[in-house]
């Protein structure tokens, strides 16, 4: 985790609008620049007209482009390559694709990828994406023309006039992706077309439709939040989003443990891509079951775990509510299970596409009875791999459900990922019941060191047994209401979790003499690190202790928390991790920085807030 990460934020982004010269790409690009400038971004634009001014419609030579680079700090160039490429027709995709970053998002109007269009653009097959080697996952494919027609069909406009508004649909969608305020665009258009209110209105309607489309379909661009390691280690790399990394971590763990990977899930933003990703990999034997609801997702995973799989279930906060009873069952059954919570904005349905860290106390305590469960919070898109692997290892080796927390920000964000080698990853050794125990074994016999019970997978002769949700006798495994036994079992289950070995939390920055310790957990790592860097660059003594292992906490937690004069816990909620640390560390009274905006932290705001405390 000591890697140094750079967070490329929302507002350091390049968008390239491209299409036929008649498609109004310059206007779309201009409006987008204007909106961005109005909200205070620095912008740099690059209009890229076709050389051939009267090229036939749809031809390769007729493509026109407009690139906008926006940034919170001064941007000096329009950007070499773009994060989002809008390609209004097949020719645009063909010629402009080279400007897209390796993992950039591509928006296409599928209605302009008909046979005739492909021909004009000189595609050889009917599958242009495949032909160009473009991963369909990067593409937001959308029948823009048709939707614009539907949108304006009651206006009395003719088809040609209607289709002139396609650019505004693309603009609306881009505005959604980058959270731009439409009002500015609307005002711009009203002014521009003040003489033709009908045109203004039509354009406004279409922008709104494009925006709504993004909202309806929960569109997102993986690389908007791009996180890159500054200290690149030699090796082979790929781009990976947090959700994909999570999926890969599970796949790696299952293979390492020699177990079948099972995912029981129900779609929910922003976790669904884990289901999508795993569904693809049947050639690795991965089994995914899209269940009727979240309860069944978790319950079926428990069944799979009992039957001997590495069983997982993925969801977001509302799904955790529904799974909590079954998660609790896994606690008392003491079966391995990985529960993935990709946090989003709450409460209730809340802000489904936004990111926050408000499920922490829920995953720790949201179950009836004393129900201890390990919790791991991934700190970056690539760390999702490691966190998923570790969660699987803990689940399998300690016979327990484990919660892996990520959030919309790191789940959708992407970063360069150094290809891991399975050989070099930690071994995973589930405590299978040794054959010698036949005859004397009972289900809740425990390994002395870990406190974990042993695993007897159905099919093994001589170890048939019944587990259940009622309290069991520690010795015999039979149902028991004995008071002393229950107290004992509650404590044994708690101790088992406490005994799990997790690495010490590392202190970064001015480890020895910091005036201020910044404390965080999970997906805010990049921002907190950047804030620390900036403060140190300002000459301040600052350190960062960022937590990935939440339960159990690292052994050195109390020591670290008490070592520094001032401590500030910064999190995207109203103080859950601070509260948790207060429960665990005697006399711990930190400063707090809390935001619940559904957005990633802004480094500048962090630095300001931390400086306030620093200077107190």
């Amino acid at each position: 985790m000591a890697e140094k990460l750079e967070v490329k934020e929302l507002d350091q982004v390049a968008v390239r609008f491209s299409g036929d010269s008649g498609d109004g790409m310059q206007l779309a690009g201009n409006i987008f620049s204007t909106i961005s400038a109005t909200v205070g971004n620095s912008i740099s634009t690059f209009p890229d007209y076709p050389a051939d001014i009267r090229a036939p419609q749809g031809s390769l030579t007729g493509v026109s482009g407009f690139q906008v680079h926006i940034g919170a700090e001064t941007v000096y160039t329009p950007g070499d390559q773009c994060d989002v490429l809008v390609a209004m027709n097949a020719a645009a995709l063909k010629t402009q694709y080279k400007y897209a970053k390796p993992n950039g998002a591509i928006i296409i109007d599928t209605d302009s990828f008909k046979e005739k269009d492909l021909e004009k653009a000189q595609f050889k097959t009917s599958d242009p994406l495949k032909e160009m080697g473009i991963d369909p996952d990067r593409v937001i494919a959308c029948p823009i023309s048709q939707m614009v027609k539907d949108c304006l069909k009651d206006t009395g406009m003719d088809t040609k006039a209607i289709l002139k508004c396609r650019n505004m649909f693309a603009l609306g969608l881009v505005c959604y992706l980058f959270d731009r305020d439409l009002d500015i665009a609307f005002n711009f258009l009203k002014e521009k077309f003040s003489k033709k209110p009908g045109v203004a209105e039509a354009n406004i309607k279409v922008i709104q439709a494009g925006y709504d489309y993004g909202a309806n379909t929960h569109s997102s661009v993986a690389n908007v939040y791009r996180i890159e390691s500054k200290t690149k280690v030699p090796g082979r790399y790929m781009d990976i989003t947090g959700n994909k990394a999570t999926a890969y971590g599970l796949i790696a763990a299952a293979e390492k443990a020699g177990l079948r990977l099972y995912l029981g899930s129900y779609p929910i933003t922003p976790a669904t891509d884990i289901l999508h990703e795993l569904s693809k990999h049947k050639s690795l034997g991965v089994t995914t079951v899209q269940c009727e609801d979240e309860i069944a997702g978790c319950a079926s995973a428990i069944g799979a775990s009992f039957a001997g799989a590495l069983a997982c279930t993925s969801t977001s906060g509302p799904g955790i509510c529904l799974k909590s009873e079954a998660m609790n069952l896994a606690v008392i059954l003491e079966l391995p299970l990985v529960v993935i919570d990709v946090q989003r904005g709450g409460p209730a349905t809340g802000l489904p596409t936004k990111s926050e860290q408000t499920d922490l106390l829920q995953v720790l305590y949201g179950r009836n009875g004393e129900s201890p469960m390990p919790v791991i919070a991934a700190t970056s898109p690539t760390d999702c791999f490691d966190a998923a692997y570790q969660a699987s290892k803990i689940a399998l080796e300690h016979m327990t459900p484990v919660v892996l927390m990520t959030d919309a920000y790191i789940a959708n964000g992407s970063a360069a990922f150094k290809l891991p080698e399975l050989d070099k990853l930690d071994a995973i050794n589930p405590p299978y019941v040794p054959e010698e125990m036949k005859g004397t074994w009972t289900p809740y016999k425990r390994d002395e060191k870990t406190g974990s019970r042993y695993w007897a997978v159905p099919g093994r002769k001589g170890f048939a047994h019944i587990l259940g949700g009622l309290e069991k006798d520690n010795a015999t495994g039979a149902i028991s209401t004995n008071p002393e036994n229950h107290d004992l079992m509650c404590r044994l289950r708690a101790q088992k979790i406490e005994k799990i070995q997790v690495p010490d939390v590392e202190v970064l920055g001015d480890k020895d003499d910091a005036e201020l310790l910044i404390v965080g957990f999970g997906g805010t790592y990049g921002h907190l690190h950047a804030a620390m860097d900036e403060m140190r660059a300002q000459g301040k003594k600052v350190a960062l202790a960022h937590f990935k292992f939440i339960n159990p906490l690292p052994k050195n937690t109390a020591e670290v928390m008490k070592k520094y004069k001032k401590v500030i816990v910064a999190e995207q909620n109203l103080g859950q991790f601070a509260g948790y640390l207060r429960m665990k560390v005697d006399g711990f009274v930190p400063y707090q920085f809390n935001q619940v905006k559904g957005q990633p932290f802004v480094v500048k705001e962090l630095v300001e807030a931390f400086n306030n405390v620093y200077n107190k």
Partner: protein
Amino acid sequence: MSEYTAQDYKKGQPRWCPGCGDHFFLASLHKAMAEIGVAPEDTAVISGIGCSSRLPHYMATYGMNTIHGRAAAIATGCKVSNPKLAVWQISGDGDGLAIGGNHFIHANRRNIDLNMILLNNRIYGLTKGQYSPTSPRGFVSKSSPYGTVEDPFRPAELCFGARGHFFARCVASDAKGTVEVLKQAYAHKGASVTEVLQNCVIFNDGTHESVYTNEGRRKNAIYLEHGKPMIFGENNEFGLVQEGFGLKVVRIGENGITEKDILVHDAHCEDNTLQLKLAMMEGPDFPIALGVIRDVPAPTYDEAVNSQIEEIKAKKPYHNFAELLETNDIWEVK
């Protein structure tokens, strides 16, 4: 011939009330399993919560007594990920049709190879006698002191509504009939629902009275067998015939009716119209149908999931994690 005896599936001392129908059913299940002959260690018995759901504790197989209503979902994961196990799911009418209703219908729709047992005593036993979704309208119970104001589910109807391919009915106290349908339920590949008419002596005694004794069944039930004419009555004097879209009871020998006129039971018929009519018959005008009412082969979910995996394995060139990584765009930092 199976190498097992009922004893091999038995464990412990059941704790149900004396006279509870669950005792009888348990004995029949042990017997059926022995006759089926799947080894205890290759058998998983999964239940929810309820009196009836205590059953796994009395089995010498693998099993779980889980949480209320989720047995079908848990059994699904068990079967899909480990298809060589014989998976039995035990639920009460509350566990299976109240809180567990959604998993019941989806397991049937997906056609997962589970042997789903519904111990229907038309009451919540374990929680001391509230009405259940199978209690008749007007039923007085602790939670309906003035009688319920809702109609019950009829399990067969719901099963069929969810595209179920197998439905059988037996009476807990009828060992022979129970063992027989259990064997057929197991033999059926895909989701099978077996409704067991079970008496709760404490909270709903006599709810299945008309068919609970041998004599009662002789009078008031019809045992359906695939390929056999639907004849019933103490002296086999009655039969069933079609009338419009419905059924009619006729007396053989009267009005020129002979055995030839009687409908022959076709449990394998894909169309479930007649099977549903049979399942819905009620006294006193009709006999209650026992036996295997519907048993239609169809692709099962667990098999399809696993054969799709094999298919894709054959098709795709990558089969382990290292190969998976290579399917991505990769660059090198030197």
